[in-house]
């Protein structure tokens, strides 16, 4: 198990997704589309993709935005001391059990306050390179997700990790799989390909 940094702790979860809270000053760490993992037991950890980042307000924050200038100390106070967490929504995409990666939904969801870690490049390669992109169906099935944007962010991150690991063909295989999965859903296919096209242009 990798000893990467914890980005937050679990607030609530279901079989398909969970919500993670972290302090505002940690918000620079995870990014939309990042692969994260939630170690639950010695040989069991859940993988997921960050699909939404939500920053809540409260009465004081609403009032502070009306000030002409907010001092650095007040900014730090609100980010470090005050209990206003950033919430990350994580879509469960698979799990690791007994050393084997599965792209099925995890058998048990994580529990309150379980720690969430950002996956390192090796873990990204291991997870996204296992099997035949079975976890794409979780992304495509989920309603109310920015599917195209999420896939584009994930493909961009993963392709970079695979290229660094010597597999330049991963991105092409991933796009071919998406075309196959979406062959009967033209609007979604176009949306996904449009987002992926933006990634490639960049």
């Amino acid at each position: 198990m990798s000893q990467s940094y914890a980005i937050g702790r679990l607030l609530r979860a279901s079989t398909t997704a969970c919500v993670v809270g972290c302090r505002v000053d940690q918000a620079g760490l995870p990014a939309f589309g990042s692969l994260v993992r939630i170690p639950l037991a010695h040989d069991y950890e859940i993988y997921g993709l960050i699909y939404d980042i939500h920053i809540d307000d409260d009465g004081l924050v609403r009032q502070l935005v009306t000030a002409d200038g907010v001092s650095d100390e007040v900014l730090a106070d609100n980010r470090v001391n005050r209990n206003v967490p950033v919430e990350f929504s994580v879509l469960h995409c698979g799990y690791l059990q007994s050393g084997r990666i599965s792209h099925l939904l995890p058998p048990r969801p994580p529990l309150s306050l379980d720690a969430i870690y950002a996956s390192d490049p090796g873990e990204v390669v291991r997870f996204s390179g296992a099997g035949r992109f079975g976890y794409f169906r979780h992304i495509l099935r989920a309603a109310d997700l920015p599917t195209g944007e999420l896939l584009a962010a994930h493909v961009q991150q993963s392709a970079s990790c695979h290229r660094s690991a010597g597999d330049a063909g991963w991105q092409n295989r991933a796009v071919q799989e998406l075309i196959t999965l979406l062959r009967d859903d033209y609007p979604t296919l176009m949306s996904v390909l449009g987002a992926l096209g933006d990634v490639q242009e960049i």
Partner: protein
Amino acid sequence: MPINFQQAVEQIRSMGSSARQRKADLDALRELARSLLRQLTGQEDYLLQLVEEAQRKNPRLRAGVPALGRLDAAVAPPAQPRPCVLFAADGSQINPDRHAAVEFGAINVGAIRMRPGSPPRETVESRLLFYEDLFIHNQMLTEDIVALMRDLAERQKLFELAKPEREGGADVVTLTDGPLELYGEEQSNPAFKERLEEYLEVMRALARTGAGAAGYVDKPRSTYLVNLLELELLKSEGRLGAAGQDHPLFPVHDGDLYDHLLEPGQRTAVFALRAASSARFTGELALHFFYLNVGRENKPYLARVEIPHWVAEAPDLLSQLHTALLEQTRQMGVRPYPYILHRAHEVAVVSFQEKEQLEAMIQAELRKQGVEPGEGSNKQSSKDLSGRTRM
């Protein structure tokens, strides 16, 4: 239905019908008060004599007299005072309740430290009151006494925090919400007197450190200076003996005198409070105050700031306090109030859910020890029933 709205509507209409006339009357009284202010400016020595004469006739008179500066002075914020460490403390309490299943009380004090260039630090200290803590001289603590214990705890916390900073050479200003003077229905109660003496001792200890101290009164309705101006009216009518009892300028308050005189950021002169109730605050603790306009252009908003004598006579501390309060209130945007005081309150406040949680913890501990906790009163049980529903 908790309110008889039919009756309420009639009373509200009746109130509304007299509102215009009342406003016109108030405006006339405000103008009279302002003209008295203009007339008496420059006669500060005469005003002091007038207050002393009136207090001989009525020792309960409360009035302010100019201590530093003219009656109509408007002091601009200092150019660039030395930066200082700012502390604020606020407290909340759980009053013992004889109707509750377990009798306990709590005093919770939250404090914030702010220093330019470093993230603020917060601390919270909770003290639970059980058994004999709940009684003084065989009497259960009253709400006034618990409030006094809270005020004392706030002040002690500020002293504990300020002392090491001062020993380290930092300039320090400490803030609390509300007046420095302690009020209470029970000033003759021996328990009140004991706590007041402790409070004064902590204030003296704070003075010895050289740290500043101030109480911030938001939306003040005090009439210390209006009371002063009224003395001139009463004297002209030969009725100075009625000072403090007859109020010819009522309901004008001090804010009405200064809201048009002070530009945003300006403060009044420092005034000394002359009142029998503050007689225990003597020497370096003698109570003073000034008004500060923390509002914006064309939207004045006055706060009263109470300071002890040792701050009033220290120009550097006064400047640091003036600047710190302006910086703090500006942080809160359109509703100016010191940010640090709001944060101290936020840290200190005990919610109803937390109180219930404490009750449950105490009950669980008693049961663990084989002691069955008591039951809440039947009256409380009835109050806790869910409210009636309406068709």
